[in-house]
């Protein structure tokens, strides 16, 4: 069922699909989460960016992740560059590990994805700590839920990408 068995050759997906999923992720992040739900909210943008930087490393690079980060900064009214820096690190992690991670199934990837996400969350919290002098620890709960979202999200994006690719190449 998992699309990332090494036997399957990955085809480049339509860039439009990547953009649409990133926009959808921004939309999901912008839903009116509140209170505990806000702490538990998975960072959909980070997940989508990580997915594409793992499976389509030449379509989604560090520069694009940075640009999406700037948009996320405006959307969340965080400091300019705060999300951008975190997503830059995220995309770098994806670019470094994409060949190794593609050997694994989604389930096995989750642990390593958790590491990359923890780093991303850490960068964001570090910037916040440097500027404002404190860190809210419940913020890191989101890292955990994001990692748990990896399998369903991966299945979904994999299915979307495969269908588009088949339609284009058949």
């Amino acid at each position, binding site marked *: 069922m998992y699309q990332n068995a090494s036997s399957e*050759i*990955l085809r*480049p997906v339509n860039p439009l699909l990547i953009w649409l999923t990133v*926009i959808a992720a*921004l*939309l999901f*992040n*912008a*839903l*009116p*989460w*509140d*209170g505990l739900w*806000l*702490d538990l*909210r998975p960072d959909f943008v980070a997940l989508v960016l990580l997915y594409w930087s793992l*499976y*389509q*490393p*030449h*379509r989604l*690079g*560090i*520069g694009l992740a*940075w640009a999406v*980060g*700037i*948009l996320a900064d*405006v*959307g*969340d*009214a*965080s*400091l*300019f*560059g*705060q999300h*951008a*820096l975190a997503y*830059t*690190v995220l995309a*770098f992690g994806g*670019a*470094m590990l994409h*060949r190794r991670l*593609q050997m694994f199934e989604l389930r096995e990837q989750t642990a390593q994805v958790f590491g990359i996400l923890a780093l991303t969350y850490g960068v964001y919290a570090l*910037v*916040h700590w440097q*500027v*404002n002098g*404190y*860190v*809210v620890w*419940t*913020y890191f709960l*989101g890292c955990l839920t994001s990692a748990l979202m990896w399998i369903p999200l991966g299945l979904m994006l994999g299915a979307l990408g495969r269908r588009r690719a088949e339609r284009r190449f058949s």
Partner: protein
Amino acid sequence: MDSTQQVPFFNRGPGPAVRLVFFAALSLLLLFVDARYHYLESARSALSVVLSPLQQAATLPSVLWRQAGEFFVTQDSLVDENLRLHRRHEQDAAQLQQLQAVQAENRQLRNLLELPARATLKTTPVEIIYIERDAFKRKVLINKGADARLQAGQIVMDDGGIVGQLTRIYPWMSEVTLITEKNFAVPVQVLRTGLRTIAFGAGDTSSLSLRYLPVSADVQSGDLLVTSGIDGIYPAGIPVAKVIKIERDASYPFARVSCLPVGGVDKHRHLLVVSGSVKPPAVPAETQPAGRK
């Protein structure tokens, strides 16, 4: 183009490490400029216009849900609510008449004492579009901005009391920092004793604390804190919070006082932006006392 195999002789530009350093440096530069000098507000409001359809779309599910809920409101509950509001209105009307008499009397007394008149509050009703999705911050965005001539620094309240302050104005919306934001300060006065102090946000959803109050200060739990109005930003006499707990530990110089905001900081969707507070006269220039250099 097979994306799983990176073939070295295809030139794809600089490697990931170079890109990481470049974009990280760019981010850090932006962070520094934004945090220190606040030069990027115009870029932010320009980008916010681009993002605003997305943000509007994100509120759509809850709007639809609410409208569906409103559609299925029963006749019974409407009649009930109408009755309750009627009763409330009658009570309020009686109190309002008293208030008018007291106000007239107060104006007269103030005239007699030659004190400046209190500001009359003008309010602009606004609606919360969405709550900021950053767990570190206590901010909401409202549906009016520069288009309704709102200005940063204006006070936001609801029917209970102070809710927050406008901190950033976009073309069509503005950002309200709630009083529960960490280290957000509101100058207050204990209504019972007139003691002036400052209420700080605690950073969680619903509490404020009074710092730097001596252990011996006359504060009781249940005391109402109202704005003191001495800073010229907050109009005087608007309820802010109620004291709920006081810890007096002799080993600390200050008492620990926790309060609960009386305004529905996390509750309502409709708020009021207050404009037209009186500017206090300028602080007189410091004069050198004679005989000293």
